[in-house]
């Protein structure tokens, strides 16, 4: 280790970030696994003392998930019913040990194609807030995550919050994860879906995102377009067509073949929609 800096105010952290390259440490759930069997030999910026960044707050137009909000914090927060997909994803991030330490923001910054937190937030049209000594900017999550382990975070920036725009009271969401075991499993594929209907059960807007089937999780705009204007009722799953999934680029790895992912993801999307439609139908 060269230096270890654990500031208590954001400005100090930003100045440290601007001073030169350093590894940002929060929950440690990605930091340490990447350093098995060796000592830490780099400058570390530990942001866990920036207590102002912890917690979920309702603000005008969106919910603010502070960068130090852990998955457990999120699970314990009182949130509207439509937030379900994020909570379901939170329960899938490792075991409770990981959920107690790992942060929502860290999951986004790590930018794994199989990050459980990304598809639901992507489906919700979440934005991220980035601070640096140069100023503050927000950008859509889909622009922030640029690929496998690649983000738009500049070397001097810190992700300070995830902003989840508010959906209507009638919106409902879900998250389905497919893996080869029950706990502690990296997804073969996963789907998050949020659907908002009008008073006549017609789909007014929706967000459907798929993870682990492309270098970065993706929204399935083709399905979304096909769904808007349709009545949301059981049987809606049949609306999913192979061409809706054409933008995905699944790979073959130790978890599954590309062909299987391409096949299974259609089932997952259909099931997610079906589940929400049944829930809506009561």
């Amino acid at each position: 280790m060269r230096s270890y800096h654990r500031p208590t105010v954001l400005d100090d952290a930003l100045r440290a970030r601007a001073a030169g390259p350093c590894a940002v440490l929060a929950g440690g759930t990605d930091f340490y696994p990447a350093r098995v069997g060796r000592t830490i030999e780099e400058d570390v910026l530990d942001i866990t003392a920036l207590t102002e960044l912890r917690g979920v707050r309702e603000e005008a137009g969106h919910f603010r998930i502070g960068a130090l909000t852990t998955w457990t914090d999120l699970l314990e927060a009182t949130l509207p019913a439509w937030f379900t997909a994020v909570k379901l994803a939170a329960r899938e991030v490792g075991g409770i040990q990981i959920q107690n330490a790992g942060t929502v923001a860290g999951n986004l910054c790590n930018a794994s194609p199989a990050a459980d937190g990304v598809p639901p937030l992507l489906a919700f049209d979440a934005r991220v807030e980035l601070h640096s000594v140069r100023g503050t900017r927000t950008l859509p999550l889909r622009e922030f995550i640029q690929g496998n382990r690649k983000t738009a975070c500049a070397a001097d920036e810190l992700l300070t919050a995830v902003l989840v725009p508010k959906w209507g009271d009638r919106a409902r969401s879900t998250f389905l994860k497919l893996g080869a075991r029950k706990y502690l499993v990296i997804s073969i594929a996963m789907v998050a879906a949020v659907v908002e209907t009008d008073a006549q059960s017609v789909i007014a807007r929706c967000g459907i995102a798929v993870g682990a089937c492309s270098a970065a999780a993706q929204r399935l705009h083709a399905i979304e377009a096909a769904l808007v204007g349709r009545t949301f009722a059981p049987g809606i799953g049949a609306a999913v067509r192979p061409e809706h999934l054409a933008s995905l680029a699944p790979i073959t790895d130790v978890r599954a073949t590309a062909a299987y992912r391409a096949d299974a993801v259609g089932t997952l999307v259909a099931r997610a929609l079906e589940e929400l439609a049944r829930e809506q139908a009561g």
Partner: protein
Amino acid sequence: MNKPAELEGRAAQISFMLNGVPRRVAARPSDRLSDVLRESLGLTGTKVGCNAGDCGACTVLVDGRQVCACLTAVAQVEGRTVQTVEGLARGTRLDRLQQAFLAHGAAQCGICTPGMLMAATSLLARNAHPREEEVLDALGGVLCRCTGYRKIVEAVLAAARGDVALVQPDAGAAVGARAPKTDGPTKVTGAERYGADRWPEGALWLRPIRSPHEKARFEIGDLAPLRARYPGLVDVVTARDVPVNGFGIFPDVKDQPVLAEGRVRFRGEAVLCLVGEMSEVLRIPESEIPVRWTPETPQTEIEDALEHTADPLHARNPDNVLIRGRVAKGDVERALATAAQVAEGEFTTSFVEHAYIEPEAGFAERVGDRIRIFACTQTPYMDREEVARILGIKDTQVHIVPSAVGGGFGGKLDISIQPLLAVAAWKLNCAVRGAYTRPESMTSTTKRHPAQMKARFGCDRDGRLVAADFAGDFNTGAYASWGNTVANRVPIHASGPYYVPNVRALTRAVYTNGPVAGAFRGFGVPQSTIVHEALLDELAEWAGIDKLEFRHRNAIRAGQATATGQVLKASAGLAQCLDALRPRWKRAVLGAEAFNHRAEAAGRLKGVRRGAGLACMWYGIGNTVIANPSTMRAGLRPDGRILFYNGAVDIGQGSNTILAQVLADALGLPMAAIDSVMGDTDLTADAGKTSASRQAFVSGNATRLAGAELRRKMIALAEARPDARLRLESGTLIATDADGEHRVDLAELPRDPRGDVLSAEGHFNPPTVPLDQDGQGVPYATYGFAAQMAEVEVDLELGTVKLARIVAAHDVGRAINPTQVEGQIHGGIAQGIGLALMEEFHAGRTENLHDYLIPTFGDVPPIEVILVEDPEPLGPHGAKGVGEPALIPTAPAIFNAIHHATRVRLRHAPATPDRIRAALLMTLG
């Protein structure tokens, strides 16, 4: 602001509440909390299994919440409260979770126990009466490789109810009792010392450097610049420092170098070791180590290795075939030609990793002209021989002190870190310690052999088996290890636990550039059982006979001859196991078929289908043919204690406990009268390795004999009658018989060099007859039998399998401790589930516990264990082994259940969702 670079390595002072006591410790802020607890504060109850948050063994509570100590920077606990396993008990009083873990057999090897206890502690603090699913969720972040999780769930629920009473059997009533583990208290308090938990002050750290290539030539360049740059690096140990650079299980196949010489044959092979001050050795980047690699095209598959023999793995095996195994009886071709029906099929399996939660660890120190090694092992006496041979010294100059073993399953039968530590300590004349990282443990140690098997089984019109023809190639990887044993054991078992008059079973173990395949719970029999159980199902269907009844009809019974011509004399309880399963089986089959009938309405390949599958197994207890002795010793101490010199290493399976039960009953004393020393080669006799399911049977007998002999001597000493009741009080032996009470003051009696007043040995070597060239003979003195039933639900669209229940009926001869036996069966089933559905090791790709999947809490369904006790006349109290039998039938039962559910036969293990879906599409699509 960034601190200047001169702060490099400087420690900070961190203050926090630790187990209720304020502590202040000097540490680098980025140090893992787990390392600080263990190294600086001496609290080794927090275990390190992966350093990556994958296993949860290091779970501690920070401000009451469970976190992985390995992922927590120590700076982050400043001002907070930390609770570790050492904080649970109040003095010697265990808390209710610890007590429940003992009472319900929730700890086997114990390496995951601290993590489990901490996770459960945080659960019960929030939720005093959790439901089962809540227990699963709360503990789901901790992996266990021994227990199959069910007894842990049971223990947590029992703790919540306050159901924590321990069984303490009376004198003479220990065998058959659910006695708690004798080494249980140290496992639940964190006091147990595993390989990484003890080291001499000032010991240097050893870090091996390993090949990133599967096949390569290499040269080690000038090491002087490295040593100049890192003054804390004391030495770099290379092959030149190894006196005799070859080891291996068999006396004639010492083919594996301690450190490679110019050539590596598998990824993960060690080429040199950095030895020095721990933090210095761990900070050296691999890129600065001057090894020049010339990679070559590896032969990792069996076909590659059989074809490409221009450059064989080992000169003494020019065709890359390590060994061939063969069993032949009768005329297979003729019998198959005239059989009413023949079923045939090809099946393959993958490399499977033991994935014990304790990575290899220990220390070595030179003590004069001797070397002492403290490390995890399944076989101290073989370690002693190997280390002596490698160092070129006498066996008696090597002292092996086995640590507690955090899981073995066959993977700790081969030496691993021991010779590296020994060579360094011997050369440098100081203490050297080390612990493998998880990736290092996974790449460099042995695996289960991948198998390519094909077979034909034939039956007559009445559904009686007439012939079995089996051929299997086993990928033994780069070095022999236990490949010989696999190649020899499989043919004996390949026709299954059935009476088959005509058998031909041929095997080859083939060298490749894959990881070294060695011993893994079952030595190849789990693989070959997948084959015969699939074919039995097919024949039963053809014959129109229920699959259970078909097996029952063919089950080998006492009086019948095995494939090797051995006529079983007794204790062949397969038919009884099937009888026990029958009512459950009928219900399961009917239930599944009724469900599927309704489910068909959803359409082909839609929805879920249920299935029930059955599989049987048999397993020879003890080494195959070769001598298999165990010697046990017990002494009476001057203070009136019994000291059990137990040469058998307990790797979690419970030999410490069941052998103490046998000894107690042989002596006629309560278990509490016995102290034990385990596996120390200076103190105990050679009880043989903990392998081949042999300790209960072989060492159990030796223990019984030692106990009986010691009892005779105690009776003689007291001048009492043979049926006298013995008691021991502080320093006094009291024998009570019809003549009254006879008291002997032990403190005044002469003592032998070990300090015993009386001492006795027992010796047992199971009778076998060598196999002839057709594999005919008596390879084992006795066999375990079992039948297991799996109930599954298959999601046709996703290819996923949900296990609903497993019922396991095992003929164990006699359950010396039913809790331990059930524990073995649960754990074996969990590993069988892994083999069937998820476990597949790929060098370079699955070298951690998140890419290599083992079953978690949520993957093991409720298990019902039925113990069938068809006593083995040769066994202690009728007992035989169960460790490996537990695993063997599980995967084939699951495969058969999937077939029942879907009509699709999986031919490769593991049957991952993508493979199942592909098979469904191919067959039904």
